């Protein structure tokens, strides 16, 4: 059952992500990230990303983005191009991370996540993500996280 879902759901997500025009991905992600990190941006915690690029690469779906901070908002760029630090893993790993079901160090020890480039920047971003208080998120965002959590539990429960 699970493998069946994996066989059906993943290619579907992958294809729709690849078909979905970059501009739509960009607008959606920028809006989402700027909202999620509003407090952190105001506090200057995300300054580490000013003029610097974090690349997130989802290997099995072959999608990814380069993320930077431009003034007061998060900017998302196409994968091609330089990045200061690159974090890569499969969709499963990212889903588990975002929904706080797994710890990044655990995934890193198990070789399911890789960090290349400026380790300090990668670590800082990880720590900022960890420090994000989900209770402060708006209701729709909380719901979104809940569904990622449910869906990943369902698909990937092992």
């Amino acid at each position, binding site marked *: 059952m699970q493998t069946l879902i994996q066989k059906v759901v993943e290619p579907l997500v992958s294809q729709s992500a690849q078909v979905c025009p970059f501009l739509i991905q960009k607008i959606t992600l920028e809006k989402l990230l700027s909202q999620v990190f509003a407090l952190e941006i105001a506090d200057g*915690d995300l300054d*580490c990303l000013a003029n610097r690029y974090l690349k997130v690469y989802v290997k099995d779906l072959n999608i990814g983005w380069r993320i930077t901070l431009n003034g007061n908002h998060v900017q998302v760029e196409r994968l091609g191009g330089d990045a200061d630090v690159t974090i890569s893993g499969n969709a499963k790993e990212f889903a588990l991370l975002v929904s*706080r*079901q*797994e*710890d*990044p*160090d*655990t995934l*890193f*020890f*198990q*070789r399911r996540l*890789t*960090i*290349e480039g400026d*380790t*300090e920047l*990668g*670590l*800082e*971003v*990880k*720590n*900022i993500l*960890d*420090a*994000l*208080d*989900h209770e402060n998120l708006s209701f729709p965002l909380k719901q979104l996280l809940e569904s990622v959590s449910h869906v990943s539990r369902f698909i990937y429960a092992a």
Partner: protein
Amino acid sequence: MELVCPAGSLPALKVAVDSGADAVYMGFKDDTNARHFAGLNFNDRKAKQALDYAIDRQVKVFVAINTYAQPKGWKRWQEAVDRAYDLGVNALIVADMGVLEYACNKYPDLALHLSVQGSATNHEALKFYHQHFGIRRAVLPRVLSLAQVKLAAEKSPVDLEVFGFGSLCIMAEGRCYLSSYVTDESPNTCGACSPAKAVRWEETAEGRESRLNNVLIDRYREGENAGYPTLCKGRFKVDDHVYNALEEPTSLNTLRLIPELSAAGVKAIKLEGRQRSPAYVEQIVRVWREALDAYAIERDNFAPRGEWLDSLSKVSEGTQTTLGAYSRPWQ
């Protein structure tokens, strides 16, 4: 025994409290604590929120000010003590004698715990810290065998806390300069072993290469579990043989020893990992809470359950655990 749990961020602190911690420990955002990493730890606003959350739920809060004050930054260490006192924390975890003296003179009512970095390994050392700085508790170094812990506990003038779980740091605590040797920074002086700015990972055809200040310290082949990029856990060539000459990437796990530690009179168990995420904190605190509760009922019949050991191994460095020095009969 009291369960003392790590918190590197507010969400980690909240899950520790919700998962059954009796006490949580945290640090400020500077080099006054031994987990000084970018983005980690508490500013004043977050520290206040943390305290409110924990105290409301009858969980104690300790603040680690456990690095060695450097001549240039002495004010920072003083301010950290002042800030912790003003916040109303339950205790400070301190290693440096200068900081201990400052705290005990200025705030005689503030509880002081000797940090593991203070490296007091016998009752005479404990007596010294107790007499001079009035410490109420000491965290014992992870270099002691169980027999040595028992011996120290027999005559200790203060309560004792020992490490129950977490990444293993093998060296005489507070005295390891391996990190300094390669990067010029060490946990005692700068608050970080192998500071992230000196770490580089590269995925190559031969595996993941881990470098510290350009020195190759390990290469993990396909399928091999990895550890933290600390010099002590690297693989080195000794007499033409390449291996983990000092220590393997591994985590300490003493679930099995709960009855013996309790019988020895140990008052608290510390879980390591302020650098880890809320997901880790939740998993380890839940297991240890269940284990301590089970021990309270089962006493002599207590045995760790398979599922506890599995979840702890899963989040461990190198994905394996050890009893560490506790089980070294030759000591």
